[in-house]
């Protein structure tokens, strides 16, 4: 039970770490990586909570959820990278402008 809890807490830790980086880092690649770290945290929570009984029979449903989640994360990262490349090609920057400058087009 304690190992399960340890994994789950690590998952929450990764989630918070990723959230911190997502807010603090301004480089877009860092932001995308932060999102990935956060999703790894969520997946770790899901996988660790699959061990319901101490005897070790594992609930397979969370595993199916993790796999679905990974597919989503891959697709989202790919989309993010594609947009990042276009932003870099257009502006030469890899940061988001402040909300006020970008409204002028």
């Amino acid at each position: 039970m304690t190992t399960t809890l340890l994994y789950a807490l690590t998952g929450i830790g990764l989630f918070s770490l990723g959230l911190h980086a997502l807010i603090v880092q301004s480089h877009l690649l860092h932001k995308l990586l932060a999102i990935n770290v956060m999703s790894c945290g969520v997946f770790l929570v899901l996988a660790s909570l699959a061990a319901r009984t101490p005897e070790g029979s594992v609930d397979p449903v969370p595993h199916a959820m993790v796999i679905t989640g990974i597919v989503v994360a891959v697709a989202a990262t790919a989309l993010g990278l594609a947009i990042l490349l276009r932003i870099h090609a257009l502006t030469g920057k890899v940061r988001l402008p402040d909300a006020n400058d970008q409204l002028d087009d």
Partner: protein
Amino acid sequence: MTPPDLGIALVILPLTGALLAFLIHPHARWIGISTALAINIVLAWLLTDLVTSPQSYHYALGSWGAPLGIELHLDGLSAFMLMMSAVTGSGVSLYAFTCFRMQSTENDHSPAFWPLWLFLWTGINALFLSADIFNLYVTLELIGLAAVALTALAGSRAALTSAMRYLLISLLGSLCYLLGVALLYHTYATVDLTLLAGRITAQPATQAALALITVGLLLKSALFPLHFWLPPAHGSAAAPVSALLSALVVKASFYLLLRLWLELFHPIHNLMPDLLGILGAAAIIWGSLQALRQIRLKLLIAYSTVAQLGYFFLVFPLTAGQSGEMSSSAWQGVLYMLLAHALAKSAMFLAAGNIQLFGGHDRIIELDHIAQRLPLTLAAFSLAGISIMGLPPSGGFIGKWLLLEVAIAQGRWGYAMIILLGGLLAAGYIFKVIGYAFTQGQMEDSISETHPVPTVMQWAALALASGSILLGWYPAPLLELLAIGDPFHFLHPSP
């Protein structure tokens, strides 16, 4: 065919259409418009079936029942939302059919619109039919990714950066939601909504899951103060895309929040409903004031969406701790506003698209002489404005009236005042646009730069706007439709 089979057709049709439009992209627009037509036919069939035998339906996909398999669920509320997406979607499809053909010289990515929009439609329809919180996560992600890609389609610097911000926010929201789902699954060993509703109790894990899910969905539905990503994204996308984002995408996550709150978390009383109500009230004021300050038409409309979203969140305090008649008219009123707003806001964005195409810009103070030259577009904008302001007889009025009635009956004068004040502020920003559009300015220099706007695009906007007005004339059948299958039946006192 039974209503659930037809519901499945509503998911498969746009999915097939999207794949076909992607593979055979020279004919994407024809595939898109015929898919939209097919969806409307199937939906009409479904609504007829549902009205003749009114009940709520469950459908086990692949005959795998609730604890293991994924169940779909269809009741009056889902059908109402499906209808909203079909009606708005068809209007916008009709507009895009002409619009993207015209812009093809300057924007070579326009064929990508159809597959992405049909994927978005798939996700939206699937979300309204799902009864499984994990499946709902998947549909949320489908909607989010398609919406981000559609925003980026405009290709300008503003569109790309706001698409990126939208992507990050959308992913953050879904991850919070997913973490909440993980906690709920761990505690109650099921992801099925009906089973969860029977098992849920007020434990720390439930409270944590509730907070995570609520915050995730608030980010996605852009409630003040989490709305910062919405105006740039909706303001910089192409006109049909802005219409879809404002009319449908934010509503999908709001619908999910409403379902989860009223089905799962209703028995767990805490401070959250009042907090959501206060944020909603702040959104109405802040969004309207920001809309008044804007110099570009599309941003004004986008801030008006922020304000209107605030109204929807008043449903949480107005149903919390209430039962029977009063809570049903609160949520039905909000849903009526939702439908009216979907039609009116898409009409406004399409009208703004026409104005931008006509004059090459959308600066509000230079809108002179639009009235004479784009009469249909200006009529569409004004009719939609009537519904947004909530003047009778319009769909927005019926929704606001129901909400106001509940707020006064409960003695919540603060909310009642906010509802009325929001209407006044809306009148302010809408008359600002209409006022400039009727001004007599210098005619000579603006004539040479104008482009003709195809009639289809003008009529599409006008049809959607008239829809939002017509809603005010026949509210009874729609409110009956909403009550089919008695969604949120636990709001009534059990006999």
